[in-house]
């Protein structure tokens, strides 16, 4: 282990510069995000991920946000184990009928102020699973959604741009510290 740690001291980090926040998402969020609430949370967001019926593809890419290339935590964003600790619910999948109540209860367990980010094409309107007897539809059919990040699945860079937009939407305009 010492050998491995020693080698890595002399390597440059793999972490890549931050992408720009998604402009489209910024525009969509402008109307939704309560500035006052956002200021209270500052640039620190705790995320609870909820799979409400996804195929697991989105989860794989959300996981990747934690790897050395994207290193989500450098932005002050981290995943937490309980909705009680969360500011943001990151919800994937078409919402299945069997998961509807669990999603509602997770939402209700999350303290205000809170935001919901729906991840993936299925989370928008059920995607290719829409119309099934077992699927309610998109996330917005069950809980209010503040931001959609599309893709099947969205790439980690795409996810990061959306989450940075959420961070920035409540901050004072044009005051984004260089991250990286």
């Amino acid at each position: 282990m010492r050998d491995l740690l020693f080698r890595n001291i002399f390597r440059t980090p793999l972490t890549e510069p931050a992408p720009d926040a998604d402009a489209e998402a910024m525009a969509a969020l402008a109307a939704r995000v309560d500035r006052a609430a956002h200021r209270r949370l500052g640039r620190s967001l705790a995320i609870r991920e909820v799979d409400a019926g996804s195929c697991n593809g989105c989860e794989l890419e959300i996981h990747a946000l934690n790897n050395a290339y994207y290193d989500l935590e450098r932005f002050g964003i981290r995943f937490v184990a309980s909705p009680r600790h969360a500011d943001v619910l990151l919800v994937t999948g078409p919402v299945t009928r069997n998961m509807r109540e669990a999603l509602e209860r997770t939402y209700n367990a999350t303290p205000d102020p809170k935001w919901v980010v729906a991840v993936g094409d299925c989370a928008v309107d059920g995607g290719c699973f829409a119309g099934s007897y077992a699927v309610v539809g998109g996330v917005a059919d069950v809980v209010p959604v503040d931001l959609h990040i599309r893709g099947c699945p969205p790439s980690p860079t795409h996810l990061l741009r959306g989450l940075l937009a959420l961070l920035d939407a409540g901050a004072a305009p044009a005051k984004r510290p260089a991250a990286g």
Partner: protein
Amino acid sequence: MPVLTDQILQGERIRDHRPWPRVVVDSGAWTVAATRVADGHATLLGLWAEPGTVHMALLGEAASDIAIVSLACPDGRFPSVGRWHAPALRLERGLRDLFGLEPADLPDERPWLDHGRWGVRHPLGGRAETPPSGAPYGFLPAEGESLHQIPVGPVHAGIIEPGHFRFTANGETVVRLEERLGYVHKGIESLMAGAELERAAQLAGRTSGDSTVAYAIAFARAVESALDIEAPPRAQWLRALMAELERLANHFGDIGAVCNDAAFALMHAHCGVLRERVLRAADTCFGHRLMRDRVVPGGVDTELDERGKTALRDLLANIRERFPRLVHLYDNTASLLDRTVGTGILKPALARQYGAGGYVGRASGRAFDARRMPGYPPYDGLAFEVPLRDEGDVNARVWIRIREVEQSLSLIDQMLARLPGGALREALPQRAGEGIALVEGFRGDILVWVRLGPDGKVLRCHLRDPSWFQWPLLEAAIEGNIVADFPLCNKSFNCSYSGHDL
């Protein structure tokens, strides 16, 4: 082929079912087949239904010996296989929920996929409207002194899929684990019915996101069998190339995640880097990190150019430089091995009884790999080993993955060196037929059975995830372990929720 050719297969053989025979039998022969499976002379590969008929896929003692037996049940009942053979229980509970067919003498009559929330009963069978009840589920009792229950899920603490685990523990020791699944049931098989091939292939590729390539290959091969065509050689090689990349990415993710669940984050960080490199190479080569929708019935919808080949060669060189150090680290960290060695032991007899595929089976002495037997191109022309261990613990499942990483690297080498040229897609004729395919995903063998109508659309499609035969074994492997080792055991199995729930 002694086991399957005798009286079981004396029924009426269906024409236009390929590549293995499908035979319509009476209930007597059905029961004989069930008892054959129960006494270990054959392995249950799958059990599924359509309105009025049940099908069972069997694997004989010689692994190339596969057959499907079908039983018409005009009165809506059929002799339960689960009565004789426990691995069939959840399959029968599931098909009863979906089709309303009644397995006679089924020992466990609780619903499985139907949580009473769909608003319909038997959505693929009689389909009766019914108000959602959300009725509570009766967990099996555990009796004894000082027992307590720990309910976990469906929303878990990590970034993972939903499912419920009900632990009964005595202090720290797990006395019983009972799983309750079905939360991510999306009704994929109902969406398949009547779908155009293109849409059906997309659905198949979204059955379990981590195995999107393997599912797409299995679906494509089943369709090609039904139509009696073959994908061009180059397409088959590119499919295998993508499948091995998928295996690499998932195994890196799993090896790291198992170590992370033993609080050894360093391995997780390094394996995460390797996984990311594989996904980026996949993106460079095939235009999508998970290689989704690149495999289509008839061939592939992608091409590998020189830039892609260079990316793959760089990837292999990088993995070969870094991975051995990680293996060395894993094997020389006593505090980590203390958690993985001897933890979550799955006995070989159970792995064999359940026909457990993938690393779960191969870490417990079951040497089955669909790439080898029954085998399919291009693996029949490539050199690779199927690693095998028999300790059945978390450590063995990690080592099987490590050895499979090495085999996948070698396979990718061979494929890059010998990739044939030529067409990428074969035109699909429009005709009816039935096909079945068994394809080795990273998690184990995926079975797809499809029936096409004369208009070329899917009439019925069944997708059987390897997890069906692995989830129940997790319940057995955790018994007697401490609650804190459950994440470790669970990750070492890494069963699919979405693939199972469908």
